[in-house]
């Protein structure tokens, strides 16, 4: 069971990747599937490792990320 | 039918606009149509002032006149500028205290009133030459009744300037008497 959960709104994300640099654990990457607007949104590679710090959501210019923690 | 076009001219500080306003209010109080149109802007700030008052029994169209029937000149520059414009047969009222030049036109009625000298003689030199001139004008030609002018003075001197009312009444009397006793 992961301790935290990152929910990415794939339709809001524009793949700017700023969250991937903000994540202290490096578990966010740009996905290979584009969304309906043609952007490649981010995805979580290893949710087990998420500490639920919320940095990704804080820096997201598109407010496309929600974060939850135990 | 009553219809007077009166041009009043002089320099700033002589109460030109005030004199015009008193005339207009007096006309209004008598139930006539009236209008008052001042010169304004840099012309006034440069020291000269004039206004046109029209008192009429019919609705007033043009509010200025290029040939006024009555013209009051309170200083010399005004005399030179406006005396030639007066309608033939019209009245030119000259403040001879300040206008030394003589009117060459023979088609005018000329009324000479040494308003500043009268003020010095009877009113301690108070700055009410405008009202002295008004008194003289109304004694010579009853454009409005003297009582209306007195009421208009009260109307125009309401509030802060109320204390000047008595002085102005006296000034009106001085001008009136000057004409009555034979100008």
């Amino acid at each position: 069971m992961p301790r935290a959960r990152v929910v990415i709104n794939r339709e809001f994300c524009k793949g700017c990747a700023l969250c991937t640099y903000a994540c202290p654990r490096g578990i966010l990457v740009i996905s290979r599937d584009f969304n309906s607007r043609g952007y490649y949104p981010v995805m979580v590679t290893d949710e087990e490792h998420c500490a639920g710090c919320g940095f990704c959501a804080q820096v997201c210019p598109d407010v496309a990320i929600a974060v939850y923690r135990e | 039918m009553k219809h007077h076009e009166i041009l009043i001219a002089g320099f700033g500080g002589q109460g030109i606009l005030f004199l015009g306003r008193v005339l207009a209010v007096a006309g209004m109080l008598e139930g006539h149509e009236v209008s008052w149109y001042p010169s304004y802007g840099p012309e006034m700030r440069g020291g000269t002032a004039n206004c046109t008052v029209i008192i009429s029994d019919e609705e007033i169209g043009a509010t200025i006149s290029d040939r006024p029937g009555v013209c009051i000149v309170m200083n010399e520059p005004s005399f030179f500028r406006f005396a030639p414009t007066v309608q033939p047969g019209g009245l030119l009222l000259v403040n001879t205290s300040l206008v030394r030049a003589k009117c060459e036109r023979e088609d005018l009625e000329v009324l000479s009133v040494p308003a500043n000298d009268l003020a010095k003689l009877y009113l301690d030199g108070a700055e009410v030459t405008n009202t002295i001139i008004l008194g003289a004008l109304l004694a010579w030609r009853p454009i409005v009744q003297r009582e209306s002018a007195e009421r208009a003075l009260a109307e125009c001197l309401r509030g802060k300037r109320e204390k000047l009312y008595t002085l102005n009444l006296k000034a009106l009397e001085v001008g009136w008497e000057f004409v009555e006793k034979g100008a």
Partner: protein
Amino acid sequence: MEKILMRGNEAVAEAAVRAGCRLYFGYPITPQNEISEYLSLRLPQVGGVFLQAESEVAAIHMVYGAAATGARVMTSSSGPGVSLMQEGLSCLAAAELPCVVVNMSRGGPGVGNIQPAQSDYFQAVKGGGHGDYRLIVLAPSTVQELVDLTYRAFYLADKYRNPVEILGDGMLGQMMEPVTFREPEFPPLPPKDWAIRGKGGGHRKWIVCLDLDPKGLEELNLKLQRKYRLLEEQEANYDTFGDPEPEILLVGFGTVGRILKSVVREGMREGLKLALFRPITLFPFPRAALFEKAKGVKGILVVEMNLGQMLEDVELAVRGKVPVFFLGHTGGVIPTVSEILEHVHGLLREEIRV
């Protein structure tokens, strides 16, 4: 009712307050400063707001903001200042916000001078700023009419959700005439449910003066045009005076309109068959009425304190059926009764063969 001898500028200010105007934003410019001077004292007495802005540009946008809240608001200026306000007026027209703008116009172009002129006619009636819009333009010719049209201006602004310009001039602003403040009764106005006042418990609203979608913007423009057509049908207004079957019809607005009244009166005394047609609304221009009135006349003489601006609307209105002549002065020169009358005689002698 009591008559008060009042200066045009002060009369318009008092009428605005009585019409319910509670906010004024403006910037000093001669010859209309008495409007703001009067309101700076008067508006606080009725719980209103007077604010001297840093420029006419700022003033008109303050008007825009206050108008968006549904308040009755006005500004005033003269020629060069009204030019600076065109940006805001275009926005007010686009956002369909009601407000009243008084232009006590002066000599132009450029800084010009401060004497009365009517050379802002094109600017006032043809839009003035960018885009396909019109202001409602009212042209009073006496101080009493200035008062009556100020009441009407606020009513029309609210009724049509459109900026209204009162186009006066330095003479009308500076002169005094007796006035009474007869408060007119207008039909009830629809509620301002569009006003921006914070969403409260309800849904949010917005007022914008842009639409980046071409179809949307065209739709707005078509809606505005429908409004302008309605205005033409319902609000075109004018005054006539003189011979019921004139040979020469004199046409002039505002200050010139009243001078022409003297011309007609004097001409009729001399046995001339003259009449006056004086548009009171410059937009909508009383085209249909003028077309009717022009039937049977030998000629029309348009007189303006500009070099032929309303002239174009007169020509359009009579559609070439009657010869139209023009006499104009500008730069602060005021046409005189005798000059105009002489011109009329000249026309009858030479131009118009009876």
